[in-house]
């Protein structure tokens, strides 16, 4: 199980994948909003989304887990 973490502090603008969904490396999985910028979060690895740990509008700090992904 791998964790996909927030690269910087910000608010979750949207989540683009659902639990159980297969994702590819490089795929945008959610968007953060920080410093008024849209920050795309891309999966660093392929796998299946096991859990979505955040919801739209939530504050996340750098390093917080956004998704867990199984290989």
């Amino acid at each position: 199980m791998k964790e996909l973490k927030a690269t910087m502090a910000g608010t979750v603008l949207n989540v683009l994948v659902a639990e159980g969904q297969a994702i590819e490396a490089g795929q945008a999985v959610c968007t953060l909003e920080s410093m008024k910028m849209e920050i795309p979060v891309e999966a660093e690895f392929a796998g299946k989304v096991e859990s979505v740990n955040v919801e739209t509008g939530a504050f996340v700090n750098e390093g917080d887990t956004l998704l867990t992904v199984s290989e």
Partner: protein
Amino acid sequence: MTNTTEQKGYNERLQEKLAGIFSGGQERYHEKLKEQGKLFVRDRLKLLFDEGEYVEDGRFANVEAGDLPADGVVTAMGKVGGQTVCVMANDSTVKAGSWGARTVEKIIRIQETAEKNQVPMLYLVDSAGARITDQLDMFPNRRGAGRIFHNQVRMSGMVPQICLLFGPSAAGGAYIPAFCDLVIMVEGNASMYLGSPRMAEKVIGEKVTLEEMGGARMHCTVSGCGDVLAKTEEEAIAQAQRYLSFFPANFAEKPAQTAGKAQKTGRALEEIIPENQNAPFDMYELIDQLVDEDSFFDVKQLFAPELITGLARIDGRPVGIVANQPKAKGGVLFHDSADKGAKFISLCDAFSIPLLFLADVPGFMIGTKVERAGIIRHGAKLIAAMSSATVPKISVIVRKAYGAGLYAMAGPAFEPDVCIALPTAQIAVMGPEAAVNAVYSNKIEAIEDPKEKLQYVQQKHQEYKEQIDIYKLASDLIVDEIVAPGSLREVLEARFAYYATKDLPLPSRKHPVNPV
């Protein structure tokens, strides 16, 4: 007759000694090299030097010991891309490339040769560190290992210094790469650490692998100690050759201009830059449209990717590019990116490489996490490096430069030779949304009707945008020129050529004090 026999004897003795030296350490250590995908030190040098030719000093070091050919290090002088360079290269088949007294003396001497001849110094490192058994002869004395680092610091900014890390650089040895201008690391083999995992477990109780703690990928992505991550030794050597082509032999000379090339064919700048100020785009694509095709050399590509730093050519003329990357962390500046930029700017300035700043920056990151990490301390380093650089500096505001982001990207107050804005550029203390919130938040909250509230906010946004309209800034002589995206390359070509004679005297003092 006797004479000839004697001659023959001398010659045989020499050939015998040379054969021993050229073959390096024992066969089993050569086998180990192959298993690790490493090259023998003399094969590395053959690849590095033009026609594989070089002259070598101290070749017979420790020749009487029998099992210490060249005392585990080859020190040589040769040409790379037509330019003379000095090299030290560890031989890891000889006592794991460890340093004895003569090893250290040889390294010190080749550094002195590089300084005397004012030519680049290359360190091909693959060494287990000090030979503890020899420590009194090589560690604490005046010409002991410390002198290697003292020389590196002394030569910094005088001649280019590059490290190719092929294996470990442990404990004190880790400072060889640390004091170089550029560190190229071979993935899987290169490592850099003060205390080994074994020592970490014994002394502090940490269980960790070498790769996690001090591997090439870690240093190129997390610690920032590595600049280029190479897959193979051959690639590492080719990268070093390419890097050197941008540099003069020393600080007193100018970098060589080559024949210019057109840019890579691709989308026009107008298409690359999104209309929505807050949407991400890939700054690399934009850089490709400004520089000679295939000329870009990325420095610290994998570290703090929100700031791109790299060497390139514009019409054959070397330039150092510092560019915000909106695709990574929104292009916001962090402590790591500030550090990355500061080092790169000081490198270019030391060797007369002009600087191009491509600004698309929402500012420095805010929040508890970064304040505690010292974002101001690191940000100050970036601003200080940019401010004190006296090479030609061109600042281009691509889309936005807010707050101290404008300072860091060579804004008008920092004496860029020109501050160019694209027609889409916005320069302000902060962006419209943030500014309207900051100034009118009480009023906005007081409005109850949501429709009225939205209308009010939109009206204030509009007013703010008018205040910071780029033509107003140009009219007030804040920006020097507004350029159509399609002609930016042409303008840069012309301006860098005009500024080639720039000569700014430094203020009289010993040296500035490092900020915070």
